[in-house]
Each structure stands twice: as structure tokens, then as C-alpha cells.
């Protein structure tokens, strides 16, 4: 294997491993904790229900957890339980914005900003490279340029000065 092939082989290896690991994501059985980790406590602490319940003996947090556990027992799905709490307590019970409508901007904007920033960096470096190349080209016939500049530069500066006045 020659040296140029090695990076490619490494990349292929990496892809193979990544693909192999994808099936590693497994499904979990529905628990109250799984749902309350997505809820913010209504006591005003701004913590997750699961966190607030553990730390502060919070009555609203306990109430929510008990109710969620009860709803799981009656066979309701995760989506149904979440929708019930959104309907009764408002959207602010969700610990993260939904991924639809206006809330989508919350999710998209950070990545959009990074993509735009990356584009900006690319253009900046590209501009640097082009001007660097120009400088190289210019330096090849620098003697010619110096003659040119020497001849016309003073005239140009004088005209510019007159123009500004």
C-alpha cells in the first residue's frame, strides 16, 4: 500500500466502523422518568421535573411524575401523555421547543449561523489565496512593475490630490 492510499483506507475503516455502530441504538421500554426528563417543573425552579423532584422535594414535580406513571399504566403512549400535559399546562412544560412552526428557528439558527460562518471563512481564505497568487504573479515581473510604478505613481498621486481638492 502506498502512502497516498493510507488516508483513504483510514477513512474507509472509519466509515465501516460508524456504519457497524449505527444499529447499536436500541429501544427502551417506556418509563415515567423517560417522559419527565422532557418536562420542566412547574414550581418555577426552571429545572427538569426529574431533577427537581430529587433535589427539592417538590410537590408539583412529584404530582407530575405520579400522573405520568399512572397514564403509562393505563396504556397511553408517550405522544398522548406529552400532548395531555401540553394541553393542560401549556407549551412551557416541555423542556425543549417543539420542532415545528416558529420554534423550528430555535433549532435551525445555531447551525445556520455556523454554516454561514464557515462560508464566510471559506470566502476569506479564498480571497487571501487569490490575492496571494496575484502577489506571486506580480513578483515575477516586479522589475517591470517598479518601472511602471516609478513612472506613473507620482502623476497618479498628483491627480488624486487635485481631484480631492
Amino acid at each position, binding site marked *: 500500500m502506498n*502512502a*497516498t492510499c*493510507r*488516508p483513504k*483506507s*483510514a*477513512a474507509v*475503516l*472509519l466509515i465501516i*466502523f*460508524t456504519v*457497524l*455502530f*449505527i444499529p*447499536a*441504538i*436500541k429501544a427502551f421500554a417506556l418509563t415515567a*422518568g423517560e417522559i419527565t*426528563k*422532557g418536562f*420542566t417543573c412547574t414550581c*418555577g*425552579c*426552571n*429545572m*427538569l421535573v*426529574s*431533577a*427537581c*423532584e*430529587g*433535589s*427539592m*422535594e417538590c410537590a408539583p414535580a412529584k404530582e407530575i411524575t405520579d400522573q405520568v406513571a399512572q397514564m403509562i399504566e393505563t396504556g397511553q403512549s408517550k405522544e398522548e401523555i406529552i400532548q395531555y400535559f401540553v394541553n393542560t399546562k*401549556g*407549551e*412551557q*412544560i*416541555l*423542556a*425543549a*421547543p417543539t420542532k415545528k412552526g*416558529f*420554534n423550528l428557528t*430555535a*433549532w435551525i439558527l*445555531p*447551525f445556520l*449561523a*455556523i454554516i454561514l*460562518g*464557515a462560508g464566510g*471563512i*471559506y470566502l*476569506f*481564505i479564498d480571497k*487571501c*489565496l487569490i*490575492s*496571494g497568487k496575484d502577489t506571486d504573479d506580480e513578483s515575477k515581473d516586479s522589475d517591470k512593475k517598479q518601472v511602471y510604478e516609478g513612472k506613473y505613481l507620482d502623476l497618479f498621486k498628483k491627480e488624486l490630490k487635485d481631484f480631492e481638492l
Partner: protein
Amino acid sequence: MSEIGLYSILIAMFLAAYSSFTAVVGIKKRRGEMIASAENAAVAVFGLLSLASVALIYALVTRDFQIEYVAKYTSRSLSTVYTLAAFYAGQKGSLLFWGWLLSLYTAIVIFQNRRKNRKLLPWVLAVMMAIDFFFVVLMVFVTNPFERLPYMPLDGQGLNPMLQNPGMIFHPPTLFLGYVGFTVPFAFALAALITGQLGDDWIKTTRKWTIISWLFLTAGNLLGMEWAYVELGWGGYWAWDPVENASFMPWIVGTAYLHSVMIQEKRDMLKVWNMVLILLTFLLTIFGTFITRSGLIASVHSFGESSLGWMFLAFLVVTLIISVGLLIYRLPDLRSKNQLDSLLSRESSFLYNNLLFVGIAFAVFWGTLFPIISEAARGVKITVGPPFYNAVITPIALTLLFLMGVCPLIAWRKTTLKNFGKKILFPTVVSAAGAALLYVLQIRSLLVLITLALCIFVSINLFLEFFNGMRTRHTLLQEGYLRALWNLVARNKRRYGGHIVHFGVVLLFMAMSGTAFNTEKQITVNKGESFKIKQYLLKYEGLSEYPTAGKERTVATLTVFNDNHKVGVLSPEKALFRGQENPTTEVAIHMTLKEDLYVILAGYGKDWATFKVLVNPLVVWLWIGGGIMALGTVIVMLPDRRKRKQSISKDTRAEAI
């Protein structure tokens, strides 16, 4: 004594205004004695605010409950150490602490620059004193720490029980030291913009200030995490609370600045960007204070709703306008002389890491403000909590981790793809093999595998940096391996100290990946009964209740066995502090390098108790990683003997000439 404090801040207010104003007039009129007077006034402000701080501490210790602040944050039963910590526990005291720290830093800056930076210093002084003036004005007119009650209460309300933790002694002052520290580079940056002295002088002068402030902010955040972990009792250490975000944002932008400033020092590039970053870092510290003090965003940390927040907002807007105005004015002078030579160069990689740092800061900023934006746009209140931040920040942070490993492999100016491919091959193969091994060892979370593979990748690159350098010294200079390693680090402290910091960051990532494997169990047991969680067996021995000076303690005793070997006794408890209605939770933790066994006493009766037990893998590596980051930062800051010798010989030569 409180009158002394009150008059001290009053006089300090006038002197801060005088110092700032006189420094500017002194520069304009070119009168050295006015500048000297401004410097003296600034030192006097430090003296007066020190006196005010001593007066407040004296009032706290002597329990002068007629002072509203003392009555609100102390009580007769509060221990001396927390009484002292009460100095910065409340809004008023913390502002005095902030103002005092700023005056201390100003005095140090004056002392450090008495024979250098003489063109910049008056403006630096004017900026720092103007900021201190703002804080002292707040103390005098809005939140006077010496405000007196019309009556003398018999006892105070006492310190919030959650604040009665060793974390309270170290976490807030460390954060304040970092927050206030960033004022120094900010003031120098503004001074450079005002005077047009846009060379490297201000950067070199403020380099140590920036690193020290960054170190304190890093330590402050980590201490806050440790405090949350042991005190809040939910088994986690970072909740993406708006106030946590407020201290995280200046830290991450400050980190970006610390990286990009190297490009200016080495290649005289990115001057505008560096200005933007340091101005932004300072503005974010004020933004954080605005969030904490306004009550605008709900937070477990906030000082409650007050008009103070809006004053910080006004201050923020004014500072932003001045900073941006000056930046635009000086834009033509900030053009770089050099240019980037390649998309694949060390300089470019720093640009990419800066993009990600700022991207993370933006994501956190956006998430923090989104509830307000949503309410304004839709009229619907929403919450932006951990699930959002974890989903958005994780991919960006992992890309950053990858770059951290890649950067040392890329040369300055230009690297060919072929060369880069050669260098990256070995670490890539080893990290992929490491991930495969972890998979075999039953780690089946994709995110964790990617994180750990990247940790291996970065660690190998860092190790190779040390190993190759050491081997080169060993071969060329015939130094023993340990000697070669020592000299390698000692002769390039910035580079290798930086690598040590990066290794600390790797450990942080590794520790955070452990959260994917947290195990939790809630169980009620009778006295003498045992229960299992993972390989641990816990036997409930019973409860004991007893009063102490400030609280009633109810302590459960559990004997812990790990694979049938007794490893210790844990004592989680509930504490009911005097004057409080609800008990607080004191967790018990059995800490090992592999995992923490974290036990919370959730409830209890005569012969029974309910426990919430968690097994949190790898948590201890957070604190070890933090310690390594601090060690690396200290190495970076150590003075360079060679440079000092060179500068001494240069001075000697200059004197001789």
C-alpha cells in the same frame, strides 16, 4: 462602622468619576500631573472600597441586624465561615465585592504599568474607573449594602440552606475573579482603539490577565458543577440553567480569543476578529449579570426581580455602542499585513475552531433568549432546557474535539493533503480500533462511541506531541528521557502547557460521556433490609436524628458492599435549617475512578426509609480533568527564564549605549 462603609462608597463614587474624567483631560491637555492624580484617585477608590468591604464584613460578623443585608443573609446560628461568605451571597454584597475586585485590579494595572504602556494607561484607567463608577453608583442609589431597617430584628433570616455548602466559599469568588478579570483586556482593547496603538503591545500586556481570568472562570464553572452535584441532589452537575449559561458564554468566547490571539502574535493577523472577541467576552459578562439581576428569565440562581437588571441592560447597550463605534472607526487600521496561505494550515484550523467556539456561544445565547423571543413573537411561553442544549451543542462540541486533535498535526502556513493524511492515519486507526474494542465491551451508544473514539484520537495526538519532542531531544542532545521531557515543557511552556489543558478537556468529554450510562433506582426498605443496584448491595442500618447549632439532622446509615466486599458506610441525610419550612437533601457519595454511587434519602418513617440511588460512571474524571486544565494553565503562565534573560541583557545593553 456601617456609617464608615456608607461614606466610603459615597466618596469612592466621586473619586471614581474624578479618576476617569481627570485621566481623559490629562491626556487631552498632555498634563502628566493630572494623569498621576487620576492614578492616585483610582488607588484611593481601592482603599475606600476595601474599607467599605471590611465595614460590611464587620457588620455581618457582629450580627448588626439593623442593616437590612445582614438581617436578610445571616442569623445568630450561622457559622462564621458562611457568615463571611454571606458578604457576596446577596445582590448588594456581591455588587460591592465586584466593585472592590475591579478597584483592586485597577490598582494592580496601575502598579504594573507605571513604567510602560504610558500612552495606553490613562485610557485604560478611564475605562476601568468608568465601569467601577457604574457599580458604585448602583451601590449608592439603588442597592445600598448599608441600608438600615427602621427597627432591630432579634435574629436574621439566615443564609439559604442550599448556599451553606463549601461550594459557596469557593465558587462565587472564583467566578467573580474571572468575570471582573476580563475587564482588564477589555479596557486595554478599548484604549488601543481610542489611541490607535493597535500593535501587539496591548495583547502582550493583557495576555496573563486574560489567561488568569480564563483560569478563574474555568475553575468557577467547575466548582459550580461540583457544588450542584453534591448539593442539589439530582445526580447531575450541569442543568443549562440561564445563569449557568451566563457564565459559560464569556468562558467559551474567552477561549476562542485565547486561541485566535496566537495568530495575531505569530502572524499579525485577525486583529479585527480578536478585538471583536475580547469586546464580546466582556459584554457577555455584563449580559450574564443582567440575566442574574433582572429576574427576566427564570433561574434557580437568580437574585429575583429588580430594577437593577435594566440598569445593566442600559450599561450593556452603551458599552456595545461605544465598542462597535470605535471598532468601525479603526477598521482601516486593523487590516492584517499577512494573509492565509492555505485552507489546510494551523492558522485556518484556528479559524475553524473559533467558528465552533463562537457557534456554541451563539447557540447558548439564542437558547437563553428564545423564551423571551417566543413570547414576544407568538405570545406563547416556552422553555429551553437541557434536551435542546444537549442536542444542539453536542455535535458542535464533538467537531471541536476532533479539531483539537487535528490542530497539532497541521503546520503553520501550509500543509499538503498528503502530509496531513500521513500524520492522521495512525491516530485514526488506533481510535477506530479503540471504538471497536469498546463496542465489544458492550458500549452500544453511538454517541458515546464517537465521543470516546475522539477522546482516544486527541489523546494519541497529544501523546505523540510530547513523545516526538522528547525523543528528538534525547537523540540530538543526549538527554535522559525524563530530563528531555522536562526541558521540552520548560522551554516551550505555552505549547506544552496548552497541550496539558487540552488533555484535561479530553477527560471532561470522557466524563460527560458517562452520563449515557447513569443507572437510577428508587426503593423503600425497612431497617435491616438490603437492596441491589448494579454490583452494589446496600444494607439499611437505621436512622438517627439529632440537632446541631443551626439545623435538625436526620441521617440514614447504609453499609455498602461492592461484589460482596464492604467498601464503606454512606450517610445521606435530610437537614431542616432553623427558620426554614422544608428540609434540604444532603447526598452521600461513594466515589471511585470508575463510577459514583450516589445516594439520596428521599423519605423516611419510623422503621423505613426511601432512597433514590444512582450509579454515575466516570464523574470523578470531571474534577481530575479540571485539575489538569488548571495545571496546564499554570504552566502556560510560568515566566520564561530565557526570555527574561534576553530582556535583561537587552536592557543592560540599552543602558550601556
